C-alpha cells in the first residue's frame, strides 16, 4: 500500500513533453467539439422551441421528429456511440484514430444534450417580450437573433459550460480507444505500463481544465446578464 503510494507520487515516469502533447490534444478535442455542439445544439434547440410554441400544420411533426432524434442520440452510451459510428467516421474523417477520428462521436454525443439545455434556456424567456416583438411586426429570423438568443444568452452560456465539462470526460473515454489526449495518457501509459504517477498527473491536468472551464463559463454568464 505504502509502496504503491510512494510510486504514485514519485513522478519518475512523467515525461513533460508527453503530458503537454496529451493536454494539447484534449484541449483541441474539447474546444472544437464544444463549438460544434453549441452551433448544432442552438439550432436544434431553436427548432424544438419554435415548433412547440404555436399550433400549426407542420409544427407537430417537426417537433416530434427533432425530439425523437435528440432523445435517440442522448440515450446511446458514449462508448457504444464511438463504436457504432466507426464506419461513418472512417468515411467522413478518413481515420478512426487520433483527435480527428474522435470528433464525430464527440459532437454527435454532445450536441443533442446541449440541444435540450438550449430548449430549456429558450423556454425561460419572458413570453411577454416575445409577444412585444411580434407586436412590432418582427420576422422569425429577426426574432431569433434580436430576441431569442440575446435574451437567453446567460442560460445558453451556463449550458455550454456544463456541456464542455461533459466533453472533457468524453474525450478521456475516447482516449482509451485511441483518440489521444489525457485519457489516452492515463490509460495507455499510466495503466498498461503500470506507471500510476502518470495517471495521477493526467488526472490533475484534467481537473485543472474542468475548473478553468467552470470559472470562465460562470464569469462570462455573469458579465452578460443585465437583469
Amino acid at each position: 500500500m505504502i509502496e504503491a503510494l510512494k510510486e504514485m507520487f514519485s513522478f519518475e515516469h512523467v515525461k513533460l513533453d508527453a503530458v503537454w502533447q496529451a493536454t494539447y490534444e484534449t484541449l483541441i478535442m474539447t474546444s472544437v467539439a464544444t463549438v460544434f455542439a453549441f452551433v448544432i445544439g442552438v439550432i436544434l434547440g431553436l427548432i424544438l422551441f419554435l415548433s412547440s410554441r404555436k399550433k400549426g400544420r407542420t409544427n407537430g411533426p417537426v417537433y416530434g421528429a427533432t425530439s425523437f432524434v435528440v432523445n435517440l442520440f442522448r440515450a446511446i452510451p458514449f462508448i457504444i456511440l464511438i463504436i457504432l459510428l466507426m464506419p461513418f467516421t472512417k468515411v467522413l474523417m478518413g481515420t478512426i484514430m487520433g483527435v480527428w477520428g474522435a470528433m464525430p462521436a464527440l459532437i454527435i454525443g454532445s450536441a443533442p444534450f446541449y440541444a435540450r439545455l438550449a430548449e430549456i434556456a429558450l423556454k425561460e424567456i419572458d413570453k411577454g417580450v416575445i409577444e412585444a416583438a411580434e407586436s412590432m411586426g418582427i420576422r422569425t429570423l429577426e426574432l431569433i437573433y434580436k430576441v431569442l438568443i440575446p435574451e437567453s444568452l446567460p442560460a445558453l452560456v451556463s449550458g455550454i459550460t456544463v456541456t464542455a465539462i461533459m466533453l472533457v470526460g468524453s474525450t478521456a473515454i475516447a482516449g482509451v480507444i485511441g483518440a489521444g489526449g489525457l485519457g489516452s495518457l492515463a490509460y495507455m501509459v499510466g495503466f498498461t505500463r503500470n506507471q500510476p504517477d502518470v495517471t495521477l498527473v493526467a488526472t490533475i491536468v484534467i481537473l485543472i481544465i474542468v475548473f478553468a472551464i467552470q470559472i470562465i463559463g460562470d464569469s462570462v454568464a455573469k458579465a452578460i446578464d443585465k437583469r
Partner: protein
Amino acid sequence: MIDILKVSKIFETKSQKIEAVKDVSLTIDKGEIFGIIGYSGAGKSTLIRLLNGLELPTSGEIIIGDDSIGALSKKELRKKRQKVSMIFQHFNLLWSRTVKENIMMPLEIAGLKKEEREKRADELIDLVGLRGREHNYPSELSGGQKQRVGIARALSNRPEVLLCDEATSALDPETTEEVLNLLLEIRETLGLTIVLITHEMEVIRKICDRAAVMEDGRVVEVAPVLKLFQNPEHGVTKRFVRDDIDDEDTELQIESIKKTFPNATILKLGFVGTGARAPIVSMLVKKFDLDINILSGNIKNTNEESYGHLYIAVNITEELLYAVIDELSKENVKVEVAQ
C-alpha cells in the same frame, strides 16, 4: 378609424371551447382615447389582441384605417403592426438592451438606417423625459420609467393607433397619474388614436373620451365617459362607478344619520360641469333659510368635466322641498331624496 364588426373569438383546447369574445361591434374615432373596462376574464385582453392581429377572430371583421386585419397577408400584417403599436402591463422590455436600444428595436425591424434610428430614438427619449437614462438597462429603472421606455418604443415608428394593455396596472397611484398624463400629452401632440383596456375605473375617468364595459365576452355598455358616471345603465358599470367613488361608505353613513336625525330629510345633490362649481349650499341657506347638515361630498374630474354629488340633511316641509328641487334644477343639479 377602427371598426370592429360582429367579432367573436373562440379558443379551442382539447377538453373545451372557450368563447372569449362574443359578437362585439364597436367604432372608435380617429384621435379618440377609447377605454375598454371589465373584470379579469371579461375578454378585454383578447379583444385588444385582435386589433393588431396577435389573435385572429373566429368570425367578424376588424378594419383599421383602410385595412381589414384578417385579410392582410403575413407580410402586410407585419407592416401594419408598425402603425398599430402596443404597450404592456409588464412593459415587456428586452433586459439585454439599454433604454435607447430598446427604443430603436422597432426601427431596426422597419429597416431604418443607423443614423436615422439614433436620431429618432433621441427625439423619443426627450419626449418621454428619459434624458440621462438612455444608456441604462431596464433593470436599473423604476416601473414608471420602464413604462416610459415602453411608450417611446411603441411611438418610434410614428403609429396611428396605440394599444394599451393594462398599461398602468402594475404601477403605484402616483406613477399611474404620470403615465396617464403622458398618454394625454402624446394624444394632443401626435394626434394618435389610443385604445386602452383596464380594470381600473380611475383610468377610464381620467383620460378616456368614451368607454365600453365588457362582461363575459360581450360589450354591455358603450358611452361617453361622463355619461357612464352619471347614468350607468348596466349592473357591471354601476359597480365600477360605485367602486371608483366609494359610495358604499356614504350609504353606511346615511343609515346612522337617519337614526341621529329621525326628522331630517336626506338629499343627494348630483352635479356635473358648471353645477360642480356653483355655490349651491350657501344659495340654499340664503334663499330658503334652511339649516343644512353636510353629510358627505365627492367631486371627481374626468379629462374634460367635473362631476360629483353631495349628501345633505335638512329639516324641510314637503312644499319647500319642491321649491328647492325647482331652484336647483335651474343650476343643473339633480336632486334625489334618500330613503
